[in-house]
């Protein structure tokens, strides 16, 4: 599966459009990690636990989007966008969407 955030896959022509595909996941933070991050808050700097958590979540959202695209018979997803929204305190939704297409 080719993924791209450009409107087309550079160097390849789009043969067919299958429409928008989406993937999302809602994650909340592990209590221990949260506590550590709270301590880290005094010192500042990168909160690695959160970085990892969001990366994993985003990867999962992308994978769900890919599954949808595969089911439609696409071999690429173009114009991918991400959105993050906090559903409740301590939980966030990671959302990925794009257009499933078939390219050469």
């Amino acid at each position, binding site marked *: 599966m*080719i*993924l*791209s*955030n*450009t*409107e087309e*896959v*550079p*160097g*390849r022509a789009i043969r067919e459009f299958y429409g928008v595909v989406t993937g999302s996941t809602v994650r909340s*933070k592990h209590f221990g990690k*949260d*506590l550590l*991050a*709270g301590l*880290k*808050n*005094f*010192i*500042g*700097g*990168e*909160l*690695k636990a*959160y*970085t990892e958590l*969001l*990366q994993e979540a*985003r990867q999962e959202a*992308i994978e769900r989007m890919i599954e949808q695209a595969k089911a439609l018979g696409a071999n690429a997803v173009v114009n*991918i966008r*991400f959105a*993050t929204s*906090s559903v409740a*305190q*301590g939980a*966030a939704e990671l959302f990925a969407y794009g257009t499933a297409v078939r390219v050469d």
Partner: protein
Amino acid sequence: MVETLLQLAVPAFLLGLGYVAGTMAEQSHYKSLRVRELRLRRLPTTNLRRPPAHWRVESAALVAGSTVVSVDYFKRFLAQLHGFVGGRVRSYESLLDRARRESVLRMKEEAVTGGFDAVINVRLESSNISSPLTNARGTVGVEVLAFGTALKLAR
């Protein structure tokens, strides 16, 4: 008396800790940023949506890098003081600057590791992250996400 002293000592200790540890972390981070940016400067990166017409593209893939950062206690205190007078809050500027540069670097590192030659259509996004535990003071941190399309070019 002892109680008042204790009440003052804890924030003072945290301020000192935030200042010392925060400044050290910031300086070493800026050092590492400069070194890695120099190493990766040959990788063309652009926010243009299409590659230049003369590039012969072999393959494309999505690359991304993200960082969650938080301010230290001292900087937060400074920013609260700033809140009274307004104006530039330099301590927060440097925090976001670090997060953005780090995210772009991670994205570029992913592109280089994958054997790509350029990254186009780079986008930067940031979002607030809040936590149930640390929410008393608002946000825990900011996430900065950098993503783009990495290209492999025909030689």
